[in-house]
């Protein structure tokens, strides 16, 4: 398949429709009343070999809001999330938008691990036209993050799920030096570097959000090919390919 839509990876899971329980003891045959709250769970699976995911920004919102747009400069919130792994400012930016419904910080997820089930609730009326944004940093990188960007999760029936395979973005805010001083994750910490996260300097090739080219790593840096980056503290094991994450949203109420 050569051309796939953004939503190609939507796999409607089997709907396990909840049946309304009619066991009212008082004998009053109350009609089922639709709840005023729609609840969802969001679960992130880290599909990479060795890239831990930082705490995630999980945002439910109405159409019209984007935390980031390809080809445009990243907000400070996305820069903070992508360089340092903190979703705090990105969540604040989302909360300030008129389209914002609810957002939470999700727990980090280890490599090749299924993450926690995070629960969010919105007014039922908003379920008909709903967007999901999830962003989380690959922490053994300078500024890579995996995300779903304002994806359409409207009209999800109670008990059904949608699954998205997520690519990896480069926030374009930090040069991909892969050094121990410039990445916050365990690879840099293990190499006894400064392991700096966020830095206000924007020194990537282009200060524009785009898809990540992958990490070069130090593999093959000393042979004749000179392919690798000798100053990188990453190894070939820190590479990944797309998709980097699977994000499943399930409506539970």
């Amino acid at each position: 398949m050569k051309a796939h839509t953004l939503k190609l990876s939507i796999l409607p899971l089997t709907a396990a429709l909840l049946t309304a329980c009619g066991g009212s003891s008082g004998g009053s045959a109350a009609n089922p009343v639709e709840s005023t709250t729609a609840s969802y769970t969001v679960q992130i699976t880290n599909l990479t070999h060795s890239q831990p995911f930082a705490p995630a920004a999980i945002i439910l919102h109405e159409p019209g809001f984007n935390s980031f747009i390809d080809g445009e400069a990243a907000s400070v919130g996305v820069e903070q999330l992508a360089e340092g792994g903190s979703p705090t400012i990105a969540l604040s930016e989302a909360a300030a938008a008129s389209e914002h419904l609810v957002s939470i910080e999700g727990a980090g997820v280890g490599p090749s691990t299924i993450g926690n089930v995070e629960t969010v609730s919105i007014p039922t009326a908003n379920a008909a036209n709903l967007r999901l944004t999830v962003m989380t940093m690959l922490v053994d990188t300078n500024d890579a993050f995996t995300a779903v960007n304002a994806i359409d999760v409207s009209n999800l029936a109670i008990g059904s799920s949608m699954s998205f395979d997520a690519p990896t973005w480069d926030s374009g805010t930090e040069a991909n030096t892969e050094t121990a001083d410039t990445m916050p994750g365990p690879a840099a910490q293990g190499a006894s570097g400064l392991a700096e996260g966020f830095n206000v300097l924007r020194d990537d090739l282009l200060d524009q959000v785009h898809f990540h080219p992958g990490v070069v790593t130090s593999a093959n840096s000393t042979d004749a090919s000179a392919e690798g980056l000798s100053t990188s503290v990453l190894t070939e094991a820190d590479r990944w390919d797309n998709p980097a994450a699977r994000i499943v949203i399930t409506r539970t109420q």
Partner: protein
Amino acid sequence: MKLRAIASVAALSLAAMGSAHAVQLTVNITNLTHGQSFTPRLLVAHDATVDLFEVGVPATDALAWLAEAGVIDDLQAPASAGRNFQAALGGVPASAGALVSNPTNNWQRFGGPLAPSTTSADYAFDSGDFEFLSLATMLIPTNDAFAGLDSIRIPTEPGTYTYLLDAFDAGTELNDELNSARTDITEDVTGLPLGGYAVPGVAGGDVPTRVADLGIGSTGVAVQASGSTIVDGTDGPVHIHRNVLGDTDAAGGASDLDSRVHRWLNPVARITIVVPQ
């Protein structure tokens, strides 16, 4: 020809899918890569007899011209006349970038180099009453990589549709990753300088949208220079590109590309198609 149309809005009715009528599409393309530019885009609306490329099938001369040199029509490169997509699709554009209408297709060349991490202008494209849409654009600097949209069924339901494009290898040239501006190496037998159609070498290293200069002095990746010559070959049929290797030595190593700049992970492009009311 395969039917790989994938609608991005849910539940297009079969009835809607079946009807075709003339529509003025609005199309734009976003270059999602870190350090690859795109050559001018070929947009083609066509019937089931036309296929720009097909994975598993050797590239046509027309695709080779596009993937190795970024050439679509005679106006771009007179030397390509008779073997480029203008010849394959038919017709003569009235001016550079004009729409060409043929019995089996409408085609048009759009834009100039598109820099990494940027979105093109909106292209107004008359898709006639054709059922399918294809697009191709070369990634530069590479030997023969291109991003392609292969025969999606044009949605008839008004709306905005989004498609992600992968990078393919035309397979018509070995991926030596040698700078086409080099004069110290020429193609074996022909003695031609590197680059362009049918001679090895990465094209496009000097385009205005480059984000880093190419190296020199490397020995070659998929094929190595021997002395001052290099023997070209093919690595087809058309397939998903295995990415460039690059290196970190601008004056040596295996590649004249930069492994910190020119690599990508698929997908490499997003196109958005607006079908009007």
